């Protein structure tokens, strides 16, 4: 097809821009450090069997509540499990839910942002107010309300809830970018040659607002991990036998004195993951917004 032949060189332009961005990204030490940590946890989530020295779930494999030693670097918990193994195995849940929820939220939010930003007028006014109303509640409160009202929780419920709550947040950013784009003359030119709204939104405007969309995705990803962990911590997510970090903390933070190691190491694990994701996100934002 001819259109494809013509499109090919254009794609290589995009590739050039992309490789330029990549070059800038890998020049930043914080991005590299963040990236390595994220990849490490992704690897652990994908192949838990390869990294854990002991089984993370079965009870009473070892003496209970041992302080960290050479044999058990992070100690053991009250159920006689090796905390080191549990920490290494604990990224799986959050690394499944958070990206899925963020993706859902970003896709929905982008569509919502395009529609409200392009049509403005009554659609924008009504949706804008609804979004305002939703956003006047802190994320975690909305999540608690929905989880309680629905009466059950689980991977899919949490993905749906976080995705739905993220979409208005994403849509705000995208809407602002779309508003700026709509002011530009190429949109007017498209209208004047009789283009329809869906074409203008998705083929003309969307490619120009991809930068904020990518940035939103990475920034939201960090916040999704934050939220999933917080929900799990207060007991609205997976619970004990699961080696999930927040679930471990939920179980043991009451015994922080004197069993500090049962809480500290999972907390450190969460800290490394969220900080790493945010370092990468920040690097991406800087490269895209320059």
């Amino acid at each position, binding site marked *: 097809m001819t259109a494809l032949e013509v499109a090919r060189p254009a794609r290589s332009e995009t590739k050039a821009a992309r490789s330029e961005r990549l070059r800038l990204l890998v020049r930043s030490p914080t991005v590299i450090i963040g990236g390595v940590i994220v990849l490490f946890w992704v690897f652990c989530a994908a192949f838990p069997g390869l990294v854990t020295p002991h089984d993370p779930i079965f009870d009473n494999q070892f003496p209970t509540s041992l302080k960290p030693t050479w044999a058990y670097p992070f100690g053991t918990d009250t159920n006689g499990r090796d905390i080191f193994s549990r920490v290494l195995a604990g990224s799986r849940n959050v690394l499944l839910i958070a990206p899925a929820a963020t993706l859902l939220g970003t896709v929905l939010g982008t569509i919502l942002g395009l529609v409200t930003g392009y049509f403005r007028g009554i659609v924008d006014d009504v949706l804008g107010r609804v979004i305002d*109303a939703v956003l*006047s509640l802190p994320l975690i*409160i909305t999540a608690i309300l929905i989880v309680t009202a629905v009466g059950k929780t689980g991977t899919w419920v949490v993905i749906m809830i976080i995705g739905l709550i993220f979409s208005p947040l994403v849509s705000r950013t995208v809407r602002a970018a779309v508003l700026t784009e709509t002011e530009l003359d190429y949109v007017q030119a498209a209208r004047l040659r009789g283009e329809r709204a869906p074409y203008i939104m998705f083929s003309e405007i969307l490619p120009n607002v991809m930068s904020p969309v990518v940035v939103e995705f990475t920034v939201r990803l960090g916040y999704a991990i*934050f939220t999933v962990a917080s929900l799990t911590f207060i007991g609205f997510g997976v619970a004990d036998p699961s080696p999930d970090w927040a679930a471990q903390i939920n179980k043991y933070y009451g015994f922080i004195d004197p069993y500090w190691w049962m809480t500290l190491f999972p907390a450190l694990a*969460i*800290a490394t993951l969220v900080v790493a994701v945010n*370092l990468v996100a920040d690097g991406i934002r800087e490269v895209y917004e320059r």
Partner: protein
Amino acid sequence: MTRFLLKRLGLALVTLFLLSVIVFSVSSVLPGNVGRAVLGPFAAQESVDALNAQLGANRSLFTQYTDWAGGLLHGDLGTSLTKQVPAWDLLRPALSHSFELALVAFLICVPLSILGGIVAGLRYGRPTDKAITIAGLSFAAMPEFVSGIFLILLFAIWLHWLPTSAQWEDGANRLTQVKYLILPGMTLTLVLFGYIARITRAGMIEALDSDYARTAYLKGLRPSVVIRKHVLRNALLPTIAVVAVQVGYLVGGLVVVEVLFNYQGIGSLIYEAARQKDLPLLTAGVLVIGIVYLVVTLIADILYAFLNPRIRLGGIE
């Protein structure tokens, strides 16, 4: 300005109305059967029906909403299922507790993070800036329960400077109370620091780079005077809006922080209500939090409008 304020107030009222509709529909429509959702799958059908009748859940949704909203307008937020007392009687003391905690957090956080943002902006691109930015980013990224645990371990368990929880004994004096509130306050601060500092820094960089800063500098003013008289005011203006929004997030963080530090505020009340499936209390608590947020942002908008001559005085026409 009056026009702007009236418009802003009108919008806030519309948002409030929509908020009540949303909260109502989530709590009444989503479960399908409220009684069943509350009592669980093993409860007898009779008790489910009885509960539905007590909650009025067997009437039309519209009537339910108008009754509920009518009650709200008269200050009736509903009755707690588990405690069988008016929700407001539980919410009021919790709210004032949370307000104390939020105040401590606010007083630690806002000056610190604005200062951090200003310093980072002034040292743009230098190591100081990098350190502040990365620290802010890292703190902001960490969930409250994680940074809270680090703070507890450091200050309470290893250093023994501060108590591990926020539960003081009855009759403790103000000073002791504040001592108990420092750790939870710091936890909330850590999360907000990054956001506020980032916006302040961005505002500083933009204002420092502006034409009017150049004009001031080329007048021969000392750099410190240029910053004080010309840069700061314009740089801090956008920060106000952000601080307001962040106060909203602070309220959200209260749930986790209050659970972690075992503090009897609105956050732990909502948490308890959710755990016990006390939907009327939960709904009332959520609504109150939404109202607090709307009021705070409204105040911030008014402050912003007042400080910004473009809005206060309007344009040429």
